[in-house]
């Protein structure tokens, strides 16, 4: 019942396998996937890769350019910029993935309920999402962080909440498109509960747009979180968050440009890899494009 097309035709191809084959052929998506994997590995093995701890200060080497000891130079406290970027990858990826998981779950539940039950509930939920969409997401995130205070968890909540409406809309549209399918009618007829129908029959068939939106969502979540930290409303120094590092380095742009160049390039690379991979996934998972 999970995949009705397959159940009806046991020998039919698995759509996920099809998508994987199509993704493998997309060179740009593969490059994106590899760069993303590289950053994930860097984040996991940061303790082994970074030559120094993120907050170790070396007062003998303040704002020095790249050297053998400090591959990307040092900052105004004599901290190793390379090590801070390596440790910073943990924060950026964590914020991106957790914030998106939060908005995908929240937005997914809202969208699924709106699409499945339709009528008044749909109207109320979607008007609420319209209202949230009317406030530019960075403004909404700023307002939420302003209340909750600047911390890692609060940045995740703020960024997650501000991107919830787009998930709700996508899931609602996907649910609406399959809500009246025969296999759903069959599930209703055999007496499955509503929650079971949504969980077992509807959500697995809406996964493709959710996965695509989630991949692209992680990219924009990382950008938003870096923006918040840059404004001084996200993670606070001495945290090696890339946006916060950029903000700190800005004061020394005349004498130590590497303090702003390096974290910025890291943000661009991670976000670019997510966008490349997300684009590839969309092409692979969208049946309209495949035709």
């Amino acid at each position, binding site marked *: 019942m999970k995949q009705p097309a397959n159940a009806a035709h046991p020998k039919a191809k698995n759509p996920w396998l099809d998508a994987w084959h199509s993704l493998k052929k997309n060179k740009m998506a593969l490059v994106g996937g590899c760069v993303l994997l590289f950053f994930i590995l860097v984040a996991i093995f940061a303790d082994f890769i970074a030559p120094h701890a993120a907050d170790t200060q070396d007062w003998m080497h303040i704002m020095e350019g790249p050297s053998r000891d400090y591959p990307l130079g040092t900052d105004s406290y004599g901290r190793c910029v390379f090590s801070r970027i390596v440790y910073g990858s943990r924060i950026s990826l964590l914020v991106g993935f957790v914030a998106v998981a939060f908005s995908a779950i929240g937005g997914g539940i809202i969208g699924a309920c709106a699409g499945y039950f339709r009528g008044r509930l749909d109207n109320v939920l979607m008007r609420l999402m319209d209202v949230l969409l009317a*406030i530019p997401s960075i403004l909404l995130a700023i307002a939420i962080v*302003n*209340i909750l205070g600047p911390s890692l968890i609060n940045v995740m909540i703020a960024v997650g909440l501000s991107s919830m409406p787009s998930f709700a809309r996508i899931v609602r549209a996907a649910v609406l498109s399959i809500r009246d399918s025969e296999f759903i009618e069959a599930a209703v007829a055999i007496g499955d509960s509503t929650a079971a129908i949504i969980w077992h029959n509807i959500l697995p068939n809406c996964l493709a747009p959710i996965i695509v939106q989630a991949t692209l969502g992680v990219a924009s979540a990382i950008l938003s979180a870096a923006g918040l930290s840059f404004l001084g409303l996200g993670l606070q120094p001495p945290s090696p968050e890339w946006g916060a590092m950029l903000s700190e380095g800005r004061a020394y742009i005349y004498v130590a440009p590497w303090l702003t*160049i390096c974290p*910025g390039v890291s*943000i661009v690379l991670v*976000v670019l890899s997510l*966008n490349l991979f997300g684009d590839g996934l969309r092409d692979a998972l969208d049946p309209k494009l495949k035709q």
Partner: protein
Amino acid sequence: MLKFIGKRLLMLIPVLIGVSLIVFTLMQLSPGDPAMIILGAQAAPEDIAILRESMGLNDPLIVQFFRFLLGMFTLDFGTSYKDGMPVLTKLLEALPYTAELTFCAVLLALIIGIPAGIISATKQYSIFDRIASVLALIGFSTPNFWLSIMLILVFSVNLKWLPVSGTGSILHLVLPSIALGVQSAAVFTRMTRSSMLEVLNMDYIRTARAKGLSERVVILKHALKNALIPVITVVGLQIGLLFGGAILTETVFAWPGVGRLMIDSIRAKDTPVVQGGVIFTASIFVFINLLVDILYAYVDPRVKAQYKS
């Protein structure tokens, strides 16, 4: 058509009430007593109590909300805690700067994005197409606050061609417009390309070519008209997004727009300005989307026909 516009205008009211409710709730939840912020931490408790009473802060929340809502509809957003100036005056002073910056950024993005998208689609898989697609993706992935700093580093610090920050001349506008417009240019390029590709595969284009029309006429006269319809929606969305997203660019370039006013107000805990600013920006965003919908109905006969019947 008038019925459609009227209906869309009416639909704005609940959205704006919803935005006010969210903003009001967020501000109520934010830490700090307004009376204490105005009088300072050293103020006597009696003075704080008197000010709280006179500001209506002891009234039930629902009363405060309706007062706030009424104020919003009469464009009275209250006065700043910092200097006692009406919030609307402050916002209207900052508005032209943000509008000017947004306009230049969108114009720049259109000048770059639409031709790039058209050429990419007409020469699909060519070197131009590949380079434009990669550049668009890089532009889309670059945070505008970092791009702002890099532009300053290259054009102001090293080449000394353009001023680092501030306002006053057209030269001051160049770097902020580029920094703010690059992401939109990337969006327009991608959107125009995909929309144009879709249109170029349609039967009427094949007919136009079969009639012996030149490729130039087919693309500029027949394809472009239809391909640009979905781009209009994206342009509208981008104007709204840039208006809100200018916060970061304005901060880097010390540009005295609405975004910078809001960031300064957040730091100073000047709640009325933050409240007013969010509602003001959201209203502009919603109105621009309404204008886009109307324009959409105007340029696309299919949408117009839907509302005529």
